[in-house]
């Protein structure tokens, strides 16, 4: 059941993002990502994201909305004396950025060679 819910929720948010992307006539997905990041922060404050995380699991956690709530929960939990969620969130993001930079370095070396 979780698999179906993950598919449906993940798909629904992506469809919404695609709709926003087209209606706002954006050229570049980054502004749309920032908007959904902030939406995650708003939904997180009202407890919607943790509720969806429990029922749909990866359908929520895999999306870029989740860190918006993750940073809030992480900071509050760190203030309460448990820094583990904050550390886990920052480590995940750092891993993603490092993996992106490695991939970019490999892929862009072909671009640079093609130019020569």
């Amino acid at each position: 059941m979780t698999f179906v819910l993950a598919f449906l929720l993940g798909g629904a948010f992506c469809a919404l993002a695609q709709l926003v992307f087209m209606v706002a006539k954006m050229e570049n997905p980054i502004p749309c990502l920032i908007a959904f990041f902030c939406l995650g922060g708003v939904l997180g404050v009202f407890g919607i994201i943790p509720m969806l995380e429990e029922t749909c699991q990866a359908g929520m956690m895999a999306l870029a909305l989740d860190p918006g709530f993750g940073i809030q929960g992480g900071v509050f939990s760190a203030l309460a004396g448990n820094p583990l969620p904050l550390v886990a969130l920052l480590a995940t993001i750092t891993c993603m950025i490092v993996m992106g930079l490695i991939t970019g370095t490999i892929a862009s070396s072909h671009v640079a060679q093609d130019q020569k």
Partner: protein
Amino acid sequence: MNSKFSSVVRAFLTGGLICLAIQVIMAALGAVLPPELPLSLRGAIALVIAGAITIVLTLSGVYAKIADFGGMGANLPFIGLVPALTGVMCDARAHGASLGGAIAAALKVMLLLFGCGFGFSLVFVFACTALGVGIFA
């Protein structure tokens, strides 16, 4: 109108399938990792594994095809950061930047994304909590 509707459906399918794939990784991790590990930590590990798979997909050019098909469906999932950074770096290199310049361009985009997202989320949560609204109040 029709093509717009079909691109929303394609984003739905792509995003849903990516989430489903990460859910499968999470389920597999659940069998391996100790059960007392919190769900969010299991999700984080699954995301990193999915990111490593995305490296292969990006380098082989498969992810670019997925992004062509799915639009935001391929960009909104967190693993979309890997191809997004690759795209920024390739663009910078194609415009004649050095490797260091390309890395700086990629980091600038990440700083914008996480700076705006985290900044807004934190300001919003502290404002709401100060007003006594929301789950953290």
